[in-house]
């Protein structure tokens, strides 16, 4: 390729863009995407990301199964989702091109590492011939074939580095090109590399060289005619950082622990996509936060429940299959009325299902997946950064009402990132926790009149020695009791205690649209972004549509029924077969309709828009 210097390239301003980096799972696409995200955040764009990687750590190189992708949608306006369709696809090999092409907009850009389009790789991706030579492809899209591997080698010539290291840095060349193309600064990545390779100066030097080579290639080559700019988004003033759902969950736990003064014990067993919470939280030993990687899911929740009995903040993190294993202990937490946070970071199921893909299939499981009447408050985060607030709220409810609480997130929220306005510590909710100390009038199941919570009397407190058990116990005294009237009363106390929490949670509000109309789009959890975007488009089109989002799935907000009545129709989009819909229909006797696509991916804005439009048109 001849390189001609072009310093006078056009700079076009765009409102938004959606880019996906795709390559082998060993190509470092998640890292590349993460770096691009950080640089984009520094520019001040609003953004939303969607990492998408295979369950196999290193599926065979070059294979379709091994393709790993990272998508980012960024804008100078407020955005809600990682984007339905791509403007740019960076494909590091033929398999990455094949697996992702369907998501590229017509006319979109394809940036490929042409050196990876060898005969073997082309075959592995199930292409008959080199797709880059296909005229149709070149007609439909703008294809930029760049010899990324060779240019990387050239950049590092003379450094005498092993071939493997040279090859591994080629993703930085691609990143450099993308930085130039979208006018992003390289500084954050250079700083990051300096930290990462502080002990390996040669590799550091090489990586920076390759990154810059990519950037300068974009600048100087004749391949690209324009450079794009996306201006800073109008965000409310303050300090921001990018945060994933799992990171926000961890910060929520840390904040709650600092606010309440409760010592945290996280009992956890590794499981995708929840493990990062364990990894991240285990870095905070200096705050006295204790993490216990247990021998299994059961031991993990058992230890957390033990911690709660001892006066700690017992937390356990898992995903659907692990939640199944925890269900007997969850029942014990209900019966012994101890505060416990159970995090379900949902993934595709049933069984092992799709470990790395997203789904909302566990709602009915966490509500009802235990023997007998076993009521538990359930609250769900709706965006990555909302995991922070939701966790604080889960802990508030658990400690105030002496109850286990399910904290719901999913793979999409857990790994997806968005800018987060860092809260002031003084603005965080106050959560007060009182252990029972007084001996007089102490009964293990003597309840607070308002909350119906039993006292938290922890071992070590003189005079309050008592035994708790999973066996049914007498009201007030907590002694083993098989009496039929007592059992009936206890079942109803437990139910009432949880139901009453409805008096202590905010009303549900219309997120976007009028307070009444033809259609309400109702959602929960990670569908918020897509529903918001769809509602905005529908309203713009002139439809009388609004949307509301449920954070509190048990108990429901008190005004939910009133809101539902204000719309002629209700649409509930979910990444399951209609679990919230079942609850809404049963509880409010309305003919709610569903949009249910369970493809391991977040719902697309266009799918929700279409479903709503069909419903409005009576189709």
């Amino acid at each position, binding site marked *: 390729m001849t390189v001609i210097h072009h310093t006078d390239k056009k700079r076009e301003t765009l409102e938004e863009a959606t880019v996906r980096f795709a390559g082998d799972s060993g190509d470092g696409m998640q890292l590349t995407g993460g770096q691009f995200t950080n640089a984009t955040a520094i520019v001040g764009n609003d953004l939303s990301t969607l990492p998408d990687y295979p369950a196999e750590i290193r599926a065979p190189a070059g294979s379709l199964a091994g393709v790993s992708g990272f998508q980012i949608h960024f804008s100078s306006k407020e955005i809600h989702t990682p984007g339905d369709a791509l403007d740019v696809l960076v494909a590091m090999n033929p398999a990455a091109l094949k697996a992702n092409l369907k998501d590229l907009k017509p006319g979109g850009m394809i940036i490929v590492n042409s050196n990876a389009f060898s005969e073997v790789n082309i075959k592995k991706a199930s292409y008959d011939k080199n797709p880059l030579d296909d005229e149709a492809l070149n007609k439909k899209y703008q294809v930029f074939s760049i010899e990324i591997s060779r240019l990387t080698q050239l950049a590092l010539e003379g450094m005498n580095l092993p071939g493997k290291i040279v090859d591994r840095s080629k993703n930085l060349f691609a990143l450099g090109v993308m930085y130039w193309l979208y006018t992003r600064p390289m500084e954050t990545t250079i700083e990051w590399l300096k930290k990462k390779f502080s002990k390996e100066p040669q590799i550091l030097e090489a990586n920076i060289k390759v990154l810059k080579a990519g950037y300068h290639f974009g600048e100087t080559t004749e391949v690209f005619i324009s450079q794009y700019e996306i201006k800073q988004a109008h965000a409310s003033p303050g300090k921001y950082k990018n945060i994933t759902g799992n990171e926000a969950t961890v910060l929520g736990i840390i904040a709650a622990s600092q606010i309440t003064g409760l010592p945290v014990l996280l009992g956890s067993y590794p499981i995708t996509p929840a493990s990062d919470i364990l990894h991240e939280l285990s870095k*905070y030993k200096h705050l006295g936060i204790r993490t216990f990687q247990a*021998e299994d899911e059961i031991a993990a929740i*058992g230890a957390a429940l033990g911690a709660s009995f001892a006066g700690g903040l017992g937390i356990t993190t898992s995903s659907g299959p692990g939640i199944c294993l925890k269900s007997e202990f969850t029942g014990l937490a209900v019966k012994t009325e101890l505060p416990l946070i159970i995090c379900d970071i949902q993934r595709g199921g049933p069984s092992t299902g799709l470990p790395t893909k997203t789904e909302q299939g566990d709602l009915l499981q966490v509500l009802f997946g235990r023997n007998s009447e076993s009521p538990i408050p359930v609250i769900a985060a709706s965006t990555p950064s909302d995991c922070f607030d939701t966790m604080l709220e889960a802990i508030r409810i658990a400690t105030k009402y002496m109850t286990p609480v399910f904290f719901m997130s999913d793979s999409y929220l857990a790994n997806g990132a968005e800018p987060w306005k860092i809260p002031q*510590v003084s603005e965080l909710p106050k959560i007060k926790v009182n252990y029972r100390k007084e001996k007089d009038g102490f009964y293990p199941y003597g309840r607070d009149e308002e909350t119906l919570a039993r006292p938290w009397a922890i071992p070590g407190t003189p005079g309050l*020695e008592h*035994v708790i058990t999973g066996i049914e116990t007498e009201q007030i005294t907590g002694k083993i009791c098989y009496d039929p009237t007592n059992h009936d009363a206890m079942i109803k106390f437990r139910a009432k205690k949880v139901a009453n929490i409805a008096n202590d949670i905010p009303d549900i509000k219309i997120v976007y649209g009028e307070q009444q109309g033809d259609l309400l789009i109702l959602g929960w959890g990670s569908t918020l972004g897509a529903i918001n975007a769809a509602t905005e488009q529908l309203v713009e089109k002139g439809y009388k549509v609004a949307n509301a989002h449920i954070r509190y799935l048990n108990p429901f907000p008190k005004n939910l029924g009133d809101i539902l009545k204000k719309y002629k129709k209700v649409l509930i989009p979910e990444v399951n077969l209609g679990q919230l819909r079942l609850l809404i229909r049963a509880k409010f006797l309305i003919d709610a309709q569903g949009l249910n696509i369970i493809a391991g991916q977040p719902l697309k804005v266009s799918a929700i828009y279409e479903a709503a439009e069909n419903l409005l048109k009576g189709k």
Partner: protein
Amino acid sequence: MAETTSQIKYTKADFESENDIRWCPGCGDYAILSALQQVMPTLGIPKEKIVFVSGIGCSSRFPHYMTCYGFHTIHGRPLTVATGIKCTNPDLHMWVITGDGDGLSIGGNHFIHAIRRNQDLKIILFNNKIYGLTKGQYSPTSELGKKTKSTPLGSIDNPINPVSIAIASGATFIARAVDKNVKHMREIFTRAAHHKGTAFIEIYQNCLVFNDNAHEKYTEKDFKDDNSVYLEHGKPLVFGKENDKAIKLKGFHPEIISSKNGSISDVFVHDENANDRGLAYVLGQMGVENPELPVAFGILRCINEPTYQDRLIEQENFAKKQKKQTLEEILNSGDTWVVK
């Protein structure tokens, strides 16, 4: 172990709860309860710092009959709960009560892992070789061929030896006792209470309803002495009604010799502090996996190793010295930008 306070003067009655005891009259559990209630006042530990955790089974009712803090959990899981309690408040003095079904069948996994971590817990396993509470099915310690409700033609499962698993898992304190020998039980409980780390005690317990006399070889006056050897640190393994038999090690194989004729230098001398797990394993197998030998009662192994809690606190203190961070610093860490 929790700090001791010399001022506290308890009697056995201080540890007897007013709850009705619901074990069958004559059950071996009574003797174990009584022995532990006798030991408690001698330890000088404030009652509020003692916690009993149990699973499910006849023995697991135990916490209800004490007057300390207690958590009667679910089947097979008491060690997990006890681990969480102890990790949150290492100052507590923890006892775990379990059975052969609870501890070795449904809870077998936790048994291995609590022990390998040297969790600072005293574990008492009531081994009656049967499921009592569910009315008489064979358990993981029931002998091959055992006829029970669920094995009318006899069990075809090989039994496991609790002590062998404890040793394989690296238990730092292992003992065995029998419910009829209350004085010995008291000694063992006292020693266990003072041990730092996992103290595992297997008790041969009689279930007179579903498996009566399962341990009579070690309890009946006429032959118990010929079938049991009581271990004492630094003492030779001598036993028998007439104190006329001894154990000699031939390689890894224990043999019975006459202590009168055999030279005393041949006799195996017990060293409970031996680091080598092999010796404790040989002792634990005697009489159980090779029935011609006597069963060893007493402390098979007692070694000093840092507990899980020691390591937890040490690591935490190290981390605290390395790094101080306020919540504000944590929230504001990483790549940030300001919007004006």
